[in-house]
């Protein structure tokens, strides 16, 4: 593989050789993320969810496309915007809902919340509330894979904003130096809070920086599930073969505010409406799949319905669950005797 940044905006074949079964799985993932977040947004407004919520809405194709290629024992690490990554990696959706509502049975026993959502049974090493906190940790996961001789890979999801953090640079360099199976997947949604990437990313483009570190990099249209899948197929394969780290920059829209409740005065007039109309990965994937006979509208509608009722079910269960017992405050501070 050359070190040139490769720009892949459209897959070579319009469905990238994805099987029907794979497509339905990815579609299901994307729909689950979208519905899950619509529901938590609603529950947040009702006062049933404490703290901060950063929604992934609009970016679903990236997590879904990549995670089709990962197994439970591959690793991902996430950001403050972690629901999509957790669901796509196979995270327990009911446990997530309980966690976000700070209930017993939550994936982190109510100690983490949205910004620390994690599912270790599924190789999801956690959402992270420190921007740039994840990349060095995924280097460690990739080091384990290499040292233990598994062919597992580690993926650090990050945003455009996180690409400017020193910890990210250090992690990328170390992964190259140690030739680790690490993937740095930057979801460029244009914004770090209310600052645009065109201002904050000095090189304007994240993928070309990776080249400077000595690893191959791809740019991909993150609204196109099939394009994401095609790139990730090559990248995951490259890592599994022990050829070292790779960077992917996926351009995506951010449909919601930086956080729920963000007034978003920094957005242009009509920007969100335009993004939702033209850049909705679910709409785009659905159209392409129907056109290429990967699925019928009827099949997809049935999935939509099934997921809607599933999300209602996990929501009701989470609402009904009790809060963690007060005695939990001092459990798990240490993992062995103290």
């Amino acid at each position, binding site marked *: 593989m050359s070190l040139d940044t490769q720009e892949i905006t459209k897959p070579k074949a319009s469905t990238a050789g994805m099987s029907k079964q794979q497509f339905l799985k990815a579609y299901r993932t994307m729909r689950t993320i979208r519905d899950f977040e619509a529901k938590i947004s609603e529950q947040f407004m009702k006062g049933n969810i*404490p703290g901060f919520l950063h929604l992934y809405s609009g970016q679903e194709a990236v997590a879904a496309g990549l995670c089709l290629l990962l197994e439970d024992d591959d690793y991902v690490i996430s950001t403050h915007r972690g629901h999509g990554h957790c669901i796509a990696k196979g995270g327990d959706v009911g446990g997530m809902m309980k966690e976000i509502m700070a209930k017993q049975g939550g994936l982190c026993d109510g100690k983490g919340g949205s910004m620390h959502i994690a599912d270790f049974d599924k190789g999801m090493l956690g959402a992270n509330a420190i921007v740039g906190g994840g990349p060095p940790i995924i280097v460690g996961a990739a080091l384990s894979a290499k040292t233990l001789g598994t062919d597992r890979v580690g993926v650090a999801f990050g945003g455009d904003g996180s690409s400017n953090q*020193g910890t990210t640079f250090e992690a990328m360099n170390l992964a190259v130096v140690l030739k680790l199976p690490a993937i740095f997947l930057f979801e460029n949604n244009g914004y770090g809070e209310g600052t645009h990437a065109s201002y*904050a990313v000095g090189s304007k483009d994240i993928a070309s920086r990776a080249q400077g570190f000595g690893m191959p990099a791809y740019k991909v249209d993150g609204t196109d599930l099939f394009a994401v899948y095609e790139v990730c197929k090559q990248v995951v394969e490259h890592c599994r073969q022990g050829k070292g780290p790779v960077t992917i920059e996926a351009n995506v829209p951010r449909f919601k505010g930086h956080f729920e409740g963000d007034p978003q005065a*920094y957005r242009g*007039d009509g920007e969100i409406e335009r993004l939702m109309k033209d850049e909705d990965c679910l709409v785009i994937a659905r159209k392409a799949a129907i056109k290429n006979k990967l699925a019928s509208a009827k099949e997809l509608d049935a999935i939509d319905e099934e997921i809607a009722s599933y999300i209602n079910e996990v929501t009701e269960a989470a609402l009904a669950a009790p809060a963690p017992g007060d005695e939990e405050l001092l459990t798990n501070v240490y993992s062995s005797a103290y």
Partner: protein
Amino acid sequence: MPVKTYREAINEALHQAMAEDSSVIVLGEEVSGGAGCDGSRDAYGGVMGVTKGLLPTYGDSRVIDTPITESAIIGAAAGAAQTGLRPVAELMFMDFFGVCFDQIYNQAAKFHYMFGGKAKCPMVIRCTTGAGWRAGAQHSQNLTQMVTMVPGLKVVCPTNAYDAKGLMLQAIQDDDCVIFVEDKILYDTSCEVPDEMYTVPFGEAKYYREGKDLTIVAISNPMHKVLAVADRLEAEGITCDVIDPRTTSPLDEEAILESVEMTGRLVVVDEMTPRCGIASDISSIVAEKAFGSLRAPIKKVTAAHSPVPFAPNLEDAWIPQEADIEAAVRQVLEYAS
């Protein structure tokens, strides 16, 4: 006198300092917001709205939105401070100090001493701190003890709007690196704040209440819980000295010792983890220097020895509450030697 919020008071101090001295600059993530965007600039004016309106007045050469890059923000502020500017750097949540702690404690804090007094570092690092927002383990910590232990840093933690303005103006004109700790629970609290510029000196405690039965020292927002407890006790005829050190470094030891020498009883309250904290520090100073005056063991009321949990009931159990303060106070009052 006009009434202003804690947020408005700090904002006014920044405005006035920038108007008076063109070497004062403000930098950090989202200090104005909207850089490079199609919508409006000054969209946030700081994530807590404290720096709102500075950009339209002083322009983007003095109000600088940075990428997400804490080490470079603090390093750049320190370098600029060494070479003629007076930067006020914002680090948003105090939890993010970890990302750039080298630039704080190995660099900014040490220039003056390590270079034999030849270098100065007149900068302010603003941050927000404290639990109660259900913001989880990485957005809720008060790490005041970590900076207070570093020689060379001055550490300010205002508990009301009046002090916030005066301490900020003092911090900006101070020639050392000052950590300015804003408690997120306090931004909307208000009191009378003069329009004109004034400073509140460092190392001078404030007496919120004066009394004879007990001394209570509190840091940051727990002060307001202490005041509620003190007022309840007063109704029972028990009066307390309630002391806010206002700065943990320098610390007004004298005010605390003087009070304990008179009351003989001390409760210290902070919202930090209990080991090696500010409450421990103050307790040890009193135990060492006013041992003879003590008529009861010193009692500390602090947060629990755990990361800050997300679940509201757990977080509430983590935070020192009014009831915990009252229980400690009664225990100390009832102790008969």
